[in-house]
């Protein structure tokens, strides 16, 4: 160990104090008039900004931070973050001249932080690269370009029929226990080696649930490129309200700057970010609590009038930047929990209308064994189609159609006795396709594997199989193709299209494997 002498200490102290200038501190001060329920009404502070960070000097010099929200003629309504008990009436409040900010940078990868960017995983302080405001105006029209690159989730049903592009906002919606978080976590795991920085924002969840997600991500090596922002159920409402915004702010740092930390430009590309807000219904509840205690008038379901704007300005920050601005992207996957499948409640309808599509998860499908329990009939993606590779479009176009026809007939055929031949073949095909799209947790599939599997389904190679053999066929066939004909997968991955030759090679491989599979079953 190096010896510590006086001169080293001197140098460190000098460096630390370099930024410190002795100057007269001119700040506005106010007095706490009333405090309770995590909010404080402050007299004075006429010059406070909306969203400004306020310093409450509590008893014994304890400093508690708050955020100014209600600016009135003679008073300011502020929410307290942190120890609310330390603040009392007649305490001094000072403005800081800063809005609420959060640090960001590569050092945060693999860490769990609170909505103010402070680590809560007990692994020491974080050396940040930059600081960003929590509330930030979303880029305008000229700074953007249309979504065109895919963000592969690794889940076949999503990548084939509800494709998500980088910079898109796709809602994951469903009742409790339908696998919403599972879809999000699988998507994070699939970003390994794809240069996408993932941010998982946990709002109002049990600390044990968050710990479980982190452990899963660690097991699959996904924490190396993931930041977890957690405001647990026991945290004050203002922190739960802030969490999605600070997650977006942490992500924006990567999107707006290049690898060298300088602003992203044409020659200094911005990074790609995936932000998961799990879940926004809890954020809305936290915001409702804050608004009601601040005495803002309640509206529908007692939510304040600006709860729509809260979510729209958050999700508008998802963006695909133009080439001049570094072509970085921020993809948002908000999660909404519905009660008993009621999507016409206030918050679900709001967020459905804001996002570029939604993935519906249904509990009856879940219990039928269709997992992921995605209802592909009412799930849509409004922009992601442009982001799909051509090969996927070639095979998945008829998949959607086949499944739609199947659903229509399946309901009908439940009563039916005699069905004509074409109806029967549609039903057969549909049942096998539904089976084909089933997928376990934590087993993301590459896009070429997905294309090959769906090709087998839509071209009728599964029609002769028993329904319960479909999954085994799919997995064994993919193994077979990747070992016996590895060039097929490679061609699809590189050419991104199924040429006539590839189609012929694939059909040949399928015929060959079908025979051996059938022989093995007898």
């Amino acid at each position, binding site marked *: 160990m190096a010896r510590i002498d006086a001169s080293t200490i001197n140098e460190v102290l000098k460096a630390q104090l370099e930024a410190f200038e002795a100057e007269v501190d001119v700040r506005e001060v106010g007095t706490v008039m009333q405090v309770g329920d995590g909010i404080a009404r402050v007299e004075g502070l006429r010059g406070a900004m909306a969203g400004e960070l306020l310093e409450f000097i509590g008893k014994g010099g304890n400093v508690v931070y708050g955020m100014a929200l209600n600016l009135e003629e003679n008073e300011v309504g502020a929410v307290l973050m942190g120890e609310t008990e330390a603040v*009392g009436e007649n305490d001094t409040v000072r403005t800081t001249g800063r809005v609420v900010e959060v640090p960001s940078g590569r050092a945060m990868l693999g860490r769990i932080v609170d909505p103010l960017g402070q680590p809560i995983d007990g692994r020491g302080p974080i050396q940040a690269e930059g600081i960003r405001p929590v509330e930030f105006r979303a880029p305008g029209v000229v700074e953007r370009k249309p979504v065109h690159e895919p963000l592969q989730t690794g889940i076949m049903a999503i990548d084939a029929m509800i494709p998500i592009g980088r910079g898109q906002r796709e809602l994951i919606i469903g009742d409790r226990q339908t696998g919403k978080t599972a879809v999000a976590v699988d998507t994070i795991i699939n970003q390994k080696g794809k240069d996408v920085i993932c941010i998982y924002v946990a709002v109002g969840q049990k600390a044990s649930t968050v710990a479980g997600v982190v452990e899963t991500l660690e097991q699959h090596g996904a924490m190396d490129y993931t930041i977890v922002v957690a405001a647990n159920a026991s945290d004050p409402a203002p922190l739960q309200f802030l969490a999605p915004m600070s997650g977006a702010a942490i992500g924006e740092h990567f999107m707006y700057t290049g690898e060298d930390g300088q602003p992203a430009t044409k020659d200094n590309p911005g990074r790609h970010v995936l932000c998961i807000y799990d879940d926004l219904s809890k954020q809305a509840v936290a915001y409702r609590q804050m608004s009601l205690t601040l005495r803002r008038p309640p509206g529908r379901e007692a939510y304040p009038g600006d709860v729509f704007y809260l979510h729209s300005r958050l999700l508008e920050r998802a963006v695909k930047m133009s080439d001049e601005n570094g072509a970085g992207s921020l993809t948002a996957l908000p999660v909404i929990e519905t009660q008993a499948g009621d999507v016409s409640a206030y918050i679900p309808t709001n967020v459905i209308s804001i996002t570029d599509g939604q993935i519906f998860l249904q509990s009856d499908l879940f219990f039928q064994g269709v997992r992921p329990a995605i209802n592909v009939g009412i799930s849509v993606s409004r922009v992601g189609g442009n982001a799909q590779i051509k090969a996927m479009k070639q095979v998945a176009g008829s998949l959607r159609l086949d499944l739609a026809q199947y659903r229509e007939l399946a309901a009908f055929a439940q009563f039916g006795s005699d069905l004509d031949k074409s109806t029967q073949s549609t039903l057969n095909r549909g049942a096998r396709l539904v089976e084909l799209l089933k997928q376990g947790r934590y087993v993301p599939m590459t896009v070429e594997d997905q294309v090959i599997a769906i090709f087998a389904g839509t071209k009728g190679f599964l029609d002769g199989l028993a329904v319960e053999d479909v999954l085994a066929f799919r997995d064994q066939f993919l193994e077979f193709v990747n070992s016996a004909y590895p060039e097929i997968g490679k061609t699809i991955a590189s050419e991104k299209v199924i040429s006539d030759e590839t189609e012929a090679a694939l059909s040949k491989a399928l015929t060959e494997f079908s025979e051996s599979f059938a022989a093995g079953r007898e």
Partner: protein
Amino acid sequence: MTTSEIARTYARVLFDLASAADAVDDADSGLAAVVESVRGHIDLRNALSDAQIPAEKKREVLRDIFGEDATPEVLAVVTLAVNRGHTELLGDIAGEFGQIAEKERGIVVAQVTTAVPLDDAIRASVTGKLSAALGRPVTLREHVDESLVGGIVINVAGRVLDGSIASQLDAMRTALSVTPQGGEA
């Protein structure tokens, strides 16, 4: 009548009474003390706004607590406000009173806190500079607080100019204890 008009009426009455008795500054500090105490003690606040407690009792409570600190004018106006159910407005009344006093007398009151008592030269220079900055004559209300160590803290028009050694030491302490967070994004 809106609440601010009610508060202004009370403040006006208090100012007229206080200027007749030539005790505007005393009234100001007395009223501030009353507001601070009422705000800081939940039991007192509850007692004063409780409709079941008779007005006579409230008057006695107020007299016992503030009789020595507050001038008779302040006590009278506060008692009136409390008995009329306007306890909540005391803070507003204090604010309005300050504004009326400033307007009527054409001067601004600045609270000056120092570690040692001011001498005349410094007093003149502080008054001169503040008057120039605010564009109005300034009177100083002086306090001595040894915990400042040195320097001066001026509290005027809702702002604090903090040039005390104690706060600079505090700032230095935070600068040393906080990990550097890198540059601006």
